[in-house]
């Protein structure tokens, strides 16, 4: 009867967010809705393997959640205010399901409330992972280099804020959508990037949240199919994920130019290309689409032996104009260097504000590489040293140390 467990787990992934979105958008109490649903899922894991999975798992879960809520209200009046609202929401949802309609998907509201301007930017991604996907605080904490207890406390605070500040559960439209969508995209991308630098492998897959982030990005394209940037983000993530197995060999870091492309996931690359083509057709340019186009160009260069260095320079220039982040500038400098324009690349790096780059590892790694190309050995060694000291990841550190050693004893200057 492990099938029933599998169904419970599958339902958890697909339905947790839907059920939570429905319950919390009506009760306005995310924490209470989570408690009720958590109990219902635990009951499902106990019951289903014995009795078999019900025909409508979501209805079963809602009924169980409602029963728990009523029991809880009788036992103790701690959540007195939200419980009737939650119970009502559960009844309403059950009625909706009896009407034989598909269960309404209100996860978009949940995504937008997690990335609401009133919620601290640093907690938006963890909040999304917990409410939409039901991940526990400890797992989220490990990806964000925060202690589990601190992560729990921050999540509790954020949910209390939603309740106390009565942040509305709605999916914005029109001008509001344009201004609030970037925060949602950013939060999903942050989940993808969390712990990206750490080692790969089975353990790392658990440690990373890349699978969860891809699910969220894919979900967003379903919920907002007319928004090109949603497709751009999804495409960017698919391209990056497709190269996962080539990024490390025997624990050593392998740069993109040396990837063994037999280890690339070609199907996922094609999927990424399709998502990007879809985005372009909507004629709404944006930074994620440009970043996806850069990754698409890198893939084409290796797969079809095309020289794309000038295209990539152009794309990075657009990106740094549209989204002038430090990461975009550093990428731009790397692209210039790859197009045999190392002098301009160094000028660009020199123009960045020192305080913004002093602890940014990628800046020092790219700077070292550029100084190397310009035969400024002494300066290159200093930059390598800096990049090594700022690395969190052992494989990256080793790779940079090898490159530094390969410079040998400096003779110039």
């Amino acid at each position, binding site marked *: 009867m492990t099938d029933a467990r599998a169904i419970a787990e599958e339902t958890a992934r697909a339905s947790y967010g839907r059920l939570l979105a429905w319950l919390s958008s009506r009760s306005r109490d995310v924490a209470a809705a989570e408690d009720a649903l958590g109990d219902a899922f635990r009951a499902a894991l106990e019951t289903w393997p014995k009795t078999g999975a019900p025909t409508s798992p979501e209805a079963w879960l809602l009924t169980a959640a409602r029963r728990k809520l009523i029991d809880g209200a009788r036992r103790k009046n701690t959540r007195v205010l939200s419980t009737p609202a939650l119970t009502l929401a559960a009844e309403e949802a059950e009625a909706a399901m009896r009407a034989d309609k598909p269960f309404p998907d209100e996860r978009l509201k949940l995504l937008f409330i997690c990335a609401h301007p009133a919620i601290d930017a640093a907690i938006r991604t963890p909040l999304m992972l917990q409410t939409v996907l039901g991940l526990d605080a400890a797992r989220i904490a490990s990806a964000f280099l925060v202690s589990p207890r601190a992560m729990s406390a921050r999540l509790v605070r954020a949910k209390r804020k939603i309740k106390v500040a009565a942040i509305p559960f709605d999916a914005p439209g029109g001008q509001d959508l344009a201004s609030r969508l970037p925060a949602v995209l950013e939060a999903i991308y942050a989940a993808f990037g969390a712990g990206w630098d750490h080692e790969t492998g089975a353990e790392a897959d658990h440690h990373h949240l890349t699978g969860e982030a891809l699910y969220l990005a894919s979900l967003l394209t379903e919920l907002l199919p007319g928004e090109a940037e949603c497709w751009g983000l999804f495409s960017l993530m698919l391209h990056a994920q497709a190269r996962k197995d080539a990024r490390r060999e025997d624990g050593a870091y392998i740069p993109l130019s040396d990837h063994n492309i037999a280890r690339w996931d070609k199907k996922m690359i094609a999927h990424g290309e399709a998502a990007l083509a879809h985005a372009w057709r909507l004629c709404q340019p944006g930074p994620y689409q440009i970043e996806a186009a850069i990754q698409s160009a890198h893939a084409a260069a290796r797969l079809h032996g095309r020289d794309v260095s000038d295209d990539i320079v152009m794309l990075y220039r657009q990106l740094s104009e549209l989204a002038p982040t430090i990461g975009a500038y550093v990428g731009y400098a790397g692209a210039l260097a790859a197009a045999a324009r190392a002098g301009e690349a160094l000028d660009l790096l020199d123009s960045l504000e020192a305080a913004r780059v002093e602890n940014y590892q990628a800046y020092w790694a790219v700077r070292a590489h550029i100084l190397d190309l310009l035969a400024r050995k002494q300066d290159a060694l200093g930059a390598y040293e800096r990049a090594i000291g700022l690395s969190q990841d*052992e494989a990256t550190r080793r790779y940079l140390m090898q490159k530094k050693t390969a410079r040998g004893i400096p003779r110039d200057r």
Partner: protein
Amino acid sequence: MKYVFLLYDDENAWDTMEDAKRNDIFGAYMAYTGALRNSGVHISGEPLTHSREGKRVRTGGVQDGPFADGKEQLGGFYLVEVKDLDEALDWAARCPCASFGHVEVRPIWNIGD
């Protein structure tokens, strides 16, 4: 906020390690210390010799090291001054020791405050 990073690793591994590997680790620590200094958070930091050279003192006697406390022993420390715990954890994660041992991050107790 001041924090101390206590670096724990398998000190016996150092005895049997190849020179090249040991030099790599020294190089990584030098680079890390340099990064701490460059960003202005570094106050001090020192490596410790093997615990066999340590002594434990309590009223009534002195015990010779090594101390059989488990596989990983205290092997060094850094004292840093940073904005908050998040920044302290970021820096601790960059410490080479985090890759092969572990780094304990402890806030300094400011009794005077």
